[in-house]
């Protein structure tokens, strides 16, 4: 009986240790990146119906500010987000080559559906298609890192 209880405790401890948000290794990151770009993320051939111009860029910035900024910062590069490096996987800079390599259609697919289990939520229904495509425009024209300040929520 005591042995059984000890085993259960050991398993629980091992499980909890395995839940720690440690940074992923190079191999894990590489495999995950390959799988996302080539297998898991759909919408590769979908084209953005919105043209990039001052209006759609402003629309995208506005739509991005509704709640994307909480994790990605105003600039999409995590500026001022205190936990960006403390979750696993860490929140990527949206200006990074790994993110920018996605097609417009893939970025829209991610915005629609999220990426499980990264913590990235899907926004289909929460934001309109029009707003989501305008966010894709914004993602292609992000401001320089640090130039857009800290999200209001972290200024208190």
């Amino acid at each position, binding site marked *: 009986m005591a042995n059984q209880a000890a085993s259960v405790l050991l398993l629980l401890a091992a499980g909890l240790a395995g839940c720690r948000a440690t940074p992923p290794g190079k191999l894990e990151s590489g495999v995950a990146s390959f799988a996302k770009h080539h297998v898991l993320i759909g919408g590769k051939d979908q084209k953005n119906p919105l043209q990039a111009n001052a209006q759609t860029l402003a629309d995208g910035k506005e*739509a991005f500010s*509704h709640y994307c900024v909480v994790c990605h910062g105003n600039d999409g590069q995590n500026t001022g987000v205190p936990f960006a490096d403390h979750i696993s996987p860490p929140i990527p800079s949206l200006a990074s080559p790994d993110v920018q390599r996605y097609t417009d259609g893939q970025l829209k697919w991610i915005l629609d559906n999220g990426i499980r289990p990264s913590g990235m939520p899907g*926004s*289909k*229904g*929460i*934001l*309109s*298609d*029009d*707003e*989501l495509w305008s966010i894709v425009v914004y993602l292609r024209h992000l401001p320089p890192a640090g130039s857009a300040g800290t999200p209001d929520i972290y200024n208190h």
Partner: protein
Amino acid sequence: MNRRTLSLSVSAVLLSAGLLTQTSGHSQPAPRRIEVHAKRFSYQPNEITVKKGEPVLLVLTAEDVSHGLRFRELNVDIKAKKDQPGQAQFTPERTGDFVGHCSTFCGSGHGSMTLTLHVVE
């Protein structure tokens, strides 16, 4: 009829014609007023049919929180706060179905708020 009377008569006719032309040139039919109510992620009504070339006054009333109504293709964007209706007047110049979306973030169902405007001949 002497020359003076003739001259006055011609002037009167020309003046009347001018006034009439001016009046008809500036007169426009009153816009059709359409009331839309926004509440908890939906519009009431959520479909409207109007005629091409018919001036429309769209009045948006937000019944719970702030909402908006935007038709990107028609360059129409209305914002309304609770108890502060917003409105926009426009004249659709082409036929088709145009889908308007809420343009003020209002919560979890914001993206599903749509209103279809049918513009017919």
